């Protein structure tokens, strides 16, 4: 009886210590992240160039966004890229994770190899692949007389595929690791029970494995989509958005035009739009996927 009362009280009144744990950090976060963010939003209603004086211009920057074909094509490219990269990375990562968690030789060494790309900085990986695409593959293409290899893919209409390859190469590692954590949490007893019932491997995957790793799938999907919608580093290291504007993502456009082009205010408006879109998509995903998880758990 005494115990129950005590618990109920603890539930009602939150100990001061909890506030100490979180409030100072939250305040710092507000000061260094939220205030600059709000200022960015504020500047999107001005004609500030990143320096010097400014005036209010109302919604002009947002209106301008819709008349600018560059911004439109940056959105189209970014969505195309994010969808392709998310699907490829998650499918391949899941396959590799399934392989790595099965009974294989050199399991630890192979795991180590597959996680390696994640350790390397995107900038340098981009520089290395620049050489692979620009020098190695073309000379290989000439040697084998394979026409499509002879030109640097980053200088063609398919430049985005080159960037996609590098992104997948690097992005796989993290997602694979997350899926592996999920797969290893699946108890072998379940499989044994399933094998007694005579379930096919395909059914086993969808009925047993997948529901159990669903939370990991959620994390991966949300993080992938979010990350790839903001794709920046690999593009800057490899094409700077070219040729033409075929690989200009929204982030690259904001950076290029916002700083070098002195269109800071317009690109602030663009950045606010990007934020709204990324947040909306991610929240939608979290909602839908969490609901599905709940369904599975029940």
């Amino acid at each position, binding site marked *: 009886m005494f115990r129950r009362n005590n618990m109920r009280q603890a539930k009602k009144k939150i*100990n001061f210590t909890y506030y100490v744990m979180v409030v100072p950090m939250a305040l710092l976060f507000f000061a*260094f992240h939220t205030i600059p963010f709000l200022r960015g939003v504020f500047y999107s209603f001005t004609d500030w160039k990143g320096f010097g004086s400014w005036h209010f211009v109302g919604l002009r920057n947002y209106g301008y966004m819709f008349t600018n074909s560059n911004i439109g094509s940056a959105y189209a490219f970014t969505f195309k890229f994010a969808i392709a990269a998310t699907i490829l990375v998650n499918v391949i990562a899941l396959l590799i994770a399934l392989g790595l968690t099965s009974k294989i030789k050199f399991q630890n060494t192979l795991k180590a190899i597959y996680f390696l790309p994640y350790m390397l900085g995107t*900038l340098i990986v981009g*520089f290395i692949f620049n050489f692979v695409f620009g020098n190695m593959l073309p000379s290989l293409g000439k040697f084998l007389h394979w026409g499509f290899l002879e030109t640097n893919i980053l200088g063609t209409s398919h430049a985005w595929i080159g960037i996609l390859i590098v992104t997948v190469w690097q992005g796989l590692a993290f997602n694979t690791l997350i899926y592996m954590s999920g797969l290893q949490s699946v108890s072998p007893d379940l499989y044994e029970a399933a094998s007694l019932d005579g379930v096919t491997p395909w059914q086993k995957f969808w009925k047993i494995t997948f529901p159990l790793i669903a939370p990991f799938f959620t994390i991966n999907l949300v993080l992938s989509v979010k990350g790839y919608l903001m794709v920046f580093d690999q593009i800057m290291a490899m094409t700077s958005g070219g040729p033409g504007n075929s690989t200009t993502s929204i982030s690259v456009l904001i950076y290029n035009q916002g700083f070098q082009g002195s269109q800071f205010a317009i690109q602030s408006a663009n950045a606010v739009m990007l934020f709204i879109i990324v947040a909306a998509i991610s929240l939608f995903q979290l909602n839908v996927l969490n609901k599905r998880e709940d369904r599975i758990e029940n």
Partner: protein
Amino acid sequence: MQTVNESLKVTKTRPSKHINYTATAVLAVLGIFAILGPLYITLMIAVKNPSDMTNVLSWPKQFNWSNFTNAWQMTDFPTMFRNTLFITAWTIIFTIITNSAAAYAITRNRGQSKFFNALYYYFISAMFIPFNVIMLPLVREVSSMHMDNDFGITFLYIVFGMPMNIFLYSGFVKQIPVALEEAAVMDGAKPYQVFFKVIFPLMMPMHATVAILSFMWTWNDFLMPLVLLSDPKQQTLQLAQYVFQGQFSTNYNLAFASYVLVLAPVLIMYVIFQRFIISGVVSGAIKG
């Protein structure tokens, strides 16, 4: 899909002992060519002479170690390495302590308090703010406080890591049974004691994950040092790399030697702690 079916079939029919050679072969070939291949090429180019570049895959005729000494000097490697180490080490230490505590407090009180629930969503939604939006106002704010140096940037990493880390930690805390804390509370422990004595050690696997992610982020980040660290003596390895790229990159061998110099500390650390890095994350998931 071949590998999926294959691997699952094997575990099904012959539960343990037997090794799936198909999966081993596929994974080994893919790993060696696709992942180690580019790194092997990097290393080969780094130790060659410019005249020895006709076949980048071949073993060098003569090892040109002077590429490394030249790159070492040109990029001022010791200073850059020290700066990067400083930023990374302190970021990891403070991130683990502060962010885990914040995540714990938020997760345990979300159900009871609207305030904590709001904080949770506040941090999570901040995860979706592109750095580009806050970059210029941030730069202005930070420099007016004279924080545009290695100390300031370390501080910013600790603060900016919050959304992601709270997301990670809170998923983990949710799965720690409340009964464990109740037992400690019954023994008369205060909340901070519960946290540091019971929860913090239990979070070890997630600490590992957070430490690895923070390490990767701070060691490899390039945009934030670029806009915040204007003093050449305060720059990081990645930033130095970018400067170096423009100045001397007609010599691929020299450029690649400097890439190797930047990658080497990470690779050495990875080889030593590899089991820990991978199993830390994996066991975190198992316990959760």
